[in-house]
C-alpha cells in the first residue's frame, strides 16, 4: 500500500501478468469484488444484468461520494465522524430552502440557492472541524464525534423532527434522471471518483496529504502548512457529505432528520476495506472505489437472494477482517519484520 503515484501509475501502465498480480496484492479488495461478483452472477438469475449494475452504482453513489472525502482525511491521519449528520443537515436545508416563499417565483431556479446553501453548510462545517483540529490540537476523532452529536441535534431542532418534502418536481426527478445512457447519479459518482483520484495521485496537494499523514513532524519541518492543509481536506469531506445528502434527497424527493444515520460507519468500512490505513499515510482511491463496490454488490446480491439484512452485516464484518488479514499477509516485509 505504500506506493504513491509515481509507482502506481507506471506500474499499471506497462506491465503484464506480473504487474497485474502485484496490482491485486496492492488492492486485495478487488479480488473480493471479482469473487462476489461471480458468486452472485451464478447464484441468482437477476444479478447479472445491466439494469442491476446501474442500480448498484446508484445505490452506492451516496456512500461512495462520502468515501472519496473520507479517504483524503484518513490518509491525512484524521477522520470525520460527522459525515452522517451532515448528510441530514444538507438534505434538510436544501429541501426546505427550495420551498421558501421568497423563491416561489423563481421556478426551477429555486433549486440553485437551495443546493448552494446545502453544499455550503457541509463545507463550512468541514472548515469548522478542521479549524478546531488545527488550532486546539485535539484529536480529529474527538472533534468530529462532537460535531456528529451536535449537528444531528441541530437538524432535529431545525426541522422540528419533521420530514420535508420537495415540492419542486425537477428536483425530485433528478434522482431518477439519465444522462448519456447512465443514471445521472452514477455519472456524478464516477466523475468525482476520477477527479479525486487525480487530486491524490497527481497534484502537490495530494502528495502533501500523504506526507502529512505519514509523518506530521516531517511535513512541518519541510515547511508544509499543515494546519490549513488539513482544514482544506476537512472542507472536501464536508462538501462530499453535503453532496451525498442532496443526491439522496433527490432520490427520495424528501429529507428526514434521521437521514444518514450510521453512514460514518459504512463509509469508514468501505474506505478501510479499500486499504486506507487508520494511522494515515497510506491509501488510494482505486482501493476505496473497490471497497464501495464490494459493499454495494454484497447488499444488492444478498437482497436479491432474500437474505435477511442482519446477515449482510455479519458477512460484511467477516469480510472486513478477512480482507485486512489478507492485506497484512500479502504485504509482509519478510525477513525484516519483527515479531510482536
Amino acid at each position, binding site marked *: 500500500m505504500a506506493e504513491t503515484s509515481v509507482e502506481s501509475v507506471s506500474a499499471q501502465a506497462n506491465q503484464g501478468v506480473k504487474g497485474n498480480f502485484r496490482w491485486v496484492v496492492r488492492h486485495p479488495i478487488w479480488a473480493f469484488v471479482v469473487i462476489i461478483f461471480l458468486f452472485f452472477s451464478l447464484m441468482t438469475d437477476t444479478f447479472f444484468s445491466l439494469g442491476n449494475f446501474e442500480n448498484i452504482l446508484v445505490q452506492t453513489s451516496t456512500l461512495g461520494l462520502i468515501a472519496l472525502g473520507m479517504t483524503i482525511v484518513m490518509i491525512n491521519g484524521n477522520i470525520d465522524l460527522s459525515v452522517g449528520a451532515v448528510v441530514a443537515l444538507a438534505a434538510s436545508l436544501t429541501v426546505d430552502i427550495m420551498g421558501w416563499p421568497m423563491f416561489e417565483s423563481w421556478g426551477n431556479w429555486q433549486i440553485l440557492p437551495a443546493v448552494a446553501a446545502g453544499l455550503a453548510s457541509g463545507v463550512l462545517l468541514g472548515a469548522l472541524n478542521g479549524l478546531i483540529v488545527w488550532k486546539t490540537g485535539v484529536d480529529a476523532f474527538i472533534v468530529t464525534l462532537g460535531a456528529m452529536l451536535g449537528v444531528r441535534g441541530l437538524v432535529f431542532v431545525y426541522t422540528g423532527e419533521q420530514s420535508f418534502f420537495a415540492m419542486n418536481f425537477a428536483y425530485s426527478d433528478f434522482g431518477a434522471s439519465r444522462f448519456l445512457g447512465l443514471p445521472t447519479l452514477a455519472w456524478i459518482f464516477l466523475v468525482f471518483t476520477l477527479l479525486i483520484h487525480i487530486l491524490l495521485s497527481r497534484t502537490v496537494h495530494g502528495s502533501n496529504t500523504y506526507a502529512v499523514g505519514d509523518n506530521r513532524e516531517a511535513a512541518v519541518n519541510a515547511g508544509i502548512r499543515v494546519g490549513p492543509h488539513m482544514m482544506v481536506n476537512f472542507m472536501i469531506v464536508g462538501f462530499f457529505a453535503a453532496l451525498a445528502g442532496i443526491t439522496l434527497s433527490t432520490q427520495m424527493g424528501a429529507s428526514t432528520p434521521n437521514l444518514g444515520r450510521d453512514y460514518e460507519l459504512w463509509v469508514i468500512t468501505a474506505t478501510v476495506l479499500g486499504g486506507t490505513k487508520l494511522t494515515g499515510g497510506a491509501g488510494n482511491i482505486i482501493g476505496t472505489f473497490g471497497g464501495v463496490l464490494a459493499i454495494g454488490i454484497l447488499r444488492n446480491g444478498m437482497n436479491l437472494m432474500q437474505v435477511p439484512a442482519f446477515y449482510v452485516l455479519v458477512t460484511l464484518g467477516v469480510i472486513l477482517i478477512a480482507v485486512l488479514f489478507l492485506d497484512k499477509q500479502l504485504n509482509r516485509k519478510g525477513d525484516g519484520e*519483527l515479531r510482536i
Partner: protein
Amino acid sequence: MSEAQPVLRLEGIVKTFPGVRALDGVDFSVFPGEVHALMGENGAGKSTLMKVLAGMYQPNEGRIMIDRKPVVMRNPIEAKQNGIILIHQELSLAEQMTVAENVFLGELPRTRWGFVDWKVLEERVGSILAKLNCDFGPRTNVGSLSIAKKQMVEIARALTHHAKVVVFDEPTASLTDAEKVVLFDIINDLKSDGVSIVYISHRMEEIFTISDRITVLRDGSYRGTLVAADTTEDEVTQLMIGRSLDYSRNIEQGEIGDITLEVDGLSCGRLYSDVSFAVRAGEVVGFYGLVGAGRTEIAETLFGLREPTSGTIRLDGEAVSIGSPADAIANGISLVPESRKEQGLVLGMNCRDNITLPQVDDMTAGPFVSNGAEIAIYDMYRDRLDIKAPSWRSEVGNLSGGNQQKIVIGKWLAMKPRVLIVDEPTRGIDVGSKAEIHNLIRELAHSGYAVIVISSEMPEILRVSDRVIAMYQGRIMREFTADEVNEDNLVQAISGVGNGKAA
C-alpha cells in the same frame, strides 16, 4: 578570515520554552566558505539555535542578519529562500513515500497545470543521489532503507537549493565510515563553492578533521569561539563541560564468573549464520563490525524480536527459547536498542514513565501504580546518568537528542537485568556523558552483569570491552582478548580481508 564579512550573524538570541531557558543571549557568526563546528553538551541548545536559524522557532529576543541585513524567517520555506538549509538531527522523513518525494517535500516541482512534475522531480533527485554515491534510486520507498541510507536522503535535501549556509545536525551518528567519507567530500565541495557549513557533532576527531572554527555553547549560553588549528581537544572539552575528562575508572576489571549466556550455532536466514559465543558474568563483550554486519539482528534475536532459523541459546547452562521480549525480560535479558526514536521511547510520555515503563507491574501498591516509587526510581537514574530535563514531567519528545538516549539506557538499567545488551550506546551523546556511560557499563559488569556492547566506534569498543568479537557479513571473523586487540587487527578482521580464523 577577519577581513571578510560574515554571511550570517546571530545576535543575542534568547529562546525559552515553558520552564526552560534553552538559549540565553547567544551570538554566532559564520563566514563565507567556512566549516564552523558547533559543540556543547547534550541539552546545551545547539539544535534549538539551529531551529531558530531555520525558521522553525521564533526567538524571544535577538536578531538574525544575513549578508548584514536583518531578516525574519517565519517558517522553514522562508529560511530556504534565504539560503539556509537545516539537516535534522532526528530523521524527519515520510516513511511510506518515495525518496524523490521526501527530498523535495514541501516544494515538489509543478507542471503548468499544477500537477506534480514527476519527470523533473526524478531527474533532479536522480542526479543528486548520483552525486552522493547512493545505491538506491528516486523511486525507492524510504521505509525500506536502512537508517544510514535514510540519513543520506536527509542530506540529499541540502543539495536541492542554492544554499548559503547548510547546517548538519549530527549527520554522522549512523553513517558507516565509507558514507562518512562521501559526506566529507560533499562538505568540501560545498565549501569550495563558497557555501558555509555549520557542523554539529560530539565526535572530536571529526570536528578536528573538518572544521575551521569551533563555537562552544554551554547551558544555553555562548562560551567562546576557537580556531580549530590553534586548539586542542582538551581545551574544547574544558570549555564544554568545565573540566577535563576522567577515564580513570575504566581500567579496573571485576571478577569474572561463570558463563551466563551461551550461544551455539545460531543462524537467522540471510541475516547472520553460525554464530557462537559466550558471555560470563562480570564481563563486557564488544561486538565490532560495519553497519549491516548482523550485530543488531543477533541482539534482536536474543531479545525475542526475531526467530532464529537454527541454533541454541543457553542461560546459566540451560537451553531457553525466547519467543518474545516478554520472555527475554522474564529471563533477565535487556536490550537498549540502536534507534531510540523508533524503538526505544514513547515520545509523548514523560521522562519518569518512560524509565519505569517495562516494570510498572512491580511498582504497584494494591491495584495502583505507586507514584512515589516511580519518582524515586526516576530520580536515581537521573542523577546516575546526569539526565538534563526540567522535571520528571517533561515530555521525552522535547528533550535534547542525547538526553533521550540516556532515558533509554536508564529504562533498561531500571530493570536490573542479568544480561544487558546495548546497541550503539553513545550515539549522539556528548563527550562528558559518553565517558560516564562507559564508566557505567564497566561498573555494571563489575557488579556481576553479563554485558554485550555493540558499537561501530572503535575507541568505544577498545575502551569498554574485556573481549571483542569482530563480525563481517553475518559471520564472526575473529575473537580477541583485551590484550590482543588493537586498531589494526580489528580493522582487518571486520573488512573481511585475510579471513581470520573463526573463533
